[in-house]
């Protein structure tokens, strides 16, 4: 195809954040009417490039041509005027407004918004949404919508504004498999209507399913551009990660478990709404053992993690840790007893985004004599200690003091692991530890968990990633409706059985499951 068919041409784009080069002389072209996948690990610079197209960041240098015309995109508004719409990873929706209000947000025509005008708009938007098979409730605030529905609102928002080029930034990372399928159908429908789409992702299977054309980025540089026919999952993985690591099978040796470290008996956790989120469960975690907890989100995983880390108190039953019964322990007591925690949302409850590396690393140990004397921080020792830790855990950072919010997700997670493993935990509670991480970082996380087990700690791994749970766990508990709906040992696990247990098959309301049933 000729050069003129490029709807987007980015030439020699450079963008730096502090000392981190997010985009290093990048060239990027997209042809009209295609679905173009931009592939790369987290922190490869995909989002940065896309944010430049949507006017959120400005390039330090380089040119952007839209429809063959040199364009300066200085704001989201200008991007919109050029016909570019973006479906963000973290949705750009105002939670408190309804779907329709969000879609018409920013519209300048017609200042008066009486009820007849709103009714007309609702009809107009419902019609537009129907055209592409996108349905969502239009009259309730956004926060009441499911994630999939919110994404549909985002898509309709770009269409309503007449977008011809739609950018999807990691659109599948928040969706269930069913929702992903539906999204892909929508994208095909959009393509039939002549829209051009860019999808950024690090999931290879999705790229091979949906894309026509593929570009691969790594560490801020554009590595390769090819059509789908030229690509294979293996070749893409190698390009993306940069080394032949993707095909290395993951090996974990089976070792004898030690004495029980955590024993949960008849545990009930009750939420504020007086619902038993965890309902009379029994299980134990031993030394030298990884216990995986599988289940569909919202079946009690969050409460289980919170009660074991002191963020929530149990309602009845008991938790025995290291032969000691825990009654209403504080978070601090549990840390001191040797329970480490990788929380579900690392930026919300794991790290303090605006603080630097050292401060984040010290958060659990700042009281100790190694870190402080008479309440004063030992600056020099702490600096050395932190430098050692980030070297040991391979955290890549420009320096020790810039805010950790600026690190990529993988580096944040490694930093979190560095802090938690450094306290020599007897028990590690890891919740969705690889969520949103790329292949390389996820592998590093898995290795750290296995190493922890091999050195004698117990690990409770709560995850929605079935692959991960099956790979790592010596024993898998399946949570359904706050109860353990089945226990499966390593080797006996297969996807179908776990899937059925997760979906609540074999589950009887009110039935009490004995611990340690092997399915």
């Amino acid at each position: 195809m000729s050069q003129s068919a490029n709807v987007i041409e980015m030439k020699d784009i450079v963008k730096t954040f502090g000392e981190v080069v997010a985009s290093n002389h990048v060239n990027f072209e997209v042809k009209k009417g295609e679905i173009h996948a931009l592939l790369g690990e987290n922190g490869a610079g995909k989002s940065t490039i896309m944010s430049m197209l949507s006017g959120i960041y400005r390039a330090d240098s380089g040119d952007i041509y839209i429809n063959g015309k040199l364009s300066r995109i200085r704001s989201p508004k200008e991007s919109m005027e050029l016909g570019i719409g973006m479906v963000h990873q973290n949705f750009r929706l105002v939670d408190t407004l309804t779907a329709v209000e969000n879609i018409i947000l920013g519209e300048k025509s017609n200042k008066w918004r009486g009820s007849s005008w709103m009714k007309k708009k609702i009809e107009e938007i419902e019609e537009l949404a129907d055209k592409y098979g996108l349905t969502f409730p239009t009259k309730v605030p956004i926060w009441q919508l499911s994630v999939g529905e919110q994404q549909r609102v985002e898509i309709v928002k770009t269409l309503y504004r007449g977008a011809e080029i739609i950018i999807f930034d990691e659109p599948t990372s928040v969706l269930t498999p069913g929702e992903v399928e539906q999204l892909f159908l929508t994208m095909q429908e959009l393509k039939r209507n002549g829209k051009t789409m860019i999808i950024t992702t690090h999931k290879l299977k999705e790229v091979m399913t949906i894309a026509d054309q593929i570009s691969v980025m790594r560490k801020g540089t554009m590595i390769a551009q090819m059509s789908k026919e030229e690509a294979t999952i293996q070749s893409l993985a190698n390009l993306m990660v940069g080394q032949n690591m993707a095909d290395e099978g993951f090996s974990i040796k089976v070792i004898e478990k030690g004495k029980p470290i955590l024993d949960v008996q008849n545990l009930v956790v009750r939420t504020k709404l007086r619902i038993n989120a965890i309902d009379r469960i029994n299980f134990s975690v031993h030394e030298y053992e990884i216990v995986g907890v599988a289940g569909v989100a919202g079946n009690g995983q969050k409460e289980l993690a919170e009660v074991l880390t002191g963020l929530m108190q149990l309602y009845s039953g008991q938790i025995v840790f290291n032969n000691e019964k825990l009654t209403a322990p504080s978070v601090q007591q549990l840390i001191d007893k040797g329970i480490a925690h990788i929380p579900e949302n690392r930026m919300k409850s794991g790290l303090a985004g605006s603080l630097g590396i050292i401060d984040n690393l010290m958060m659990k140990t700042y009281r100790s004599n190694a870190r402080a004397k008479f309440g004063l921080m030992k600056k020099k020792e702490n600096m050395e200690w932190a430098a050692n830790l980030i070297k040991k855990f391979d955290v890549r950072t420009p320096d020790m003091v810039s805010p950790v919010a600026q690190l990529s997700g993988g580096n944040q997670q490694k930093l979190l692991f560095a802090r938690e493993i450094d306290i020599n935990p007897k028990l590690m509670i890891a919740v969705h530890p690889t969520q949103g991480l790329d292949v390389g970082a996820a592998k590093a996380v898995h290795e750290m968990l296995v190493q922890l087990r091999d050195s004698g700690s117990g690990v409770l791994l709560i995850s929605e990633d079935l692959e991960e749970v099956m790979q790592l766990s010596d024993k898998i508990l399946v949570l359904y409706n706050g109860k353990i709906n089945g226990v499966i040992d390593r080797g006996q696990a297969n996807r179908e059985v776990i899937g059925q247990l997760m979906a609540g098959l074999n589950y009887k309301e009110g039935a009490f499951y004995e611990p340690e049933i092997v399915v």
Partner: protein
Amino acid sequence: MEIIPLIIAAAISGGTSLLFAVLGGILNEKAGVINLGTEGIMLIGAVMSAIVFIQTNNLFITLAVVLIATGFLGLLHAFLCITLRANQTVSGLAITLFGTGLSAYLGKSVAGVPIPVSIPKVELDWLDAIPIIGQIFSGLDIFIWLSIALSIILYVYMYKTAWGLHLKAVGDNPSTSDAMGISVAAYRYFHVIAGSMLMGVAGFYLIMVYSPNWIEGMTSGRGWIAIALIIFARWNPIYALFGAYFFGGLDSLGFRMQIYEFNIPSYFLKMIPYAATIFILMFIGWKNRNKPSVEPKSLGNPYFREQRL
């Protein structure tokens, strides 16, 4: 029963100054900016009113000068909080301290000088004919009607216009608003300045109608009560109307009880509105403990486009 319309009328005249300040505060906070400068801005409004009116004897010029002076303070707060992204609490407190000091200095020449003003009153015969209601609303001054109209106008503005939708979006989620082509800075500047002008009008009303001579620090905490009232009113201009009259009623109740010589120390009576503020906030917090908060979600947070989320 004669006394009830009197109490209500007193509540209205006592609450009108507060109402202007609360409406101004709502505009600020809806855009996502806390304005703790209310007390200082009211004082500047009041002292400028006294000075200009004694010089010119012209109500319009007085009001115009008040709007300019307090609009300028609003601009200062906006510049600090929006452009320089300073801490809004500190900036607001600085403006209150500045306004308190400056008004005391400027007001020296007019301290205690009675202001010979007559505010136009609205006489509506058909309204007077209605029992009780007629008694309450008979002969209220024009600014009271203006403040009531303003509450309704702002309500319509906030809930029935494109600007109102944008304002809510800017206060709740500035980065999304920005992505949707709404100028966050423009909305914030406009509403902080307009809101500050309303706080100036609150000072103007206080000195021109409620207590017509300048006394240093004469707002005596009304600015702070107005800030609490914003929460009481749940950021709704119509609720603000009732909230302001409620506190206005408490204020004049304390005042009147002194006249009737109840055997209660006057300091105690003066304390009533402030103690009520504490109790009402506790009550509201308790009542709404399980409801989603209606506070603008990004209240107090400066917006910076390139900040990583």
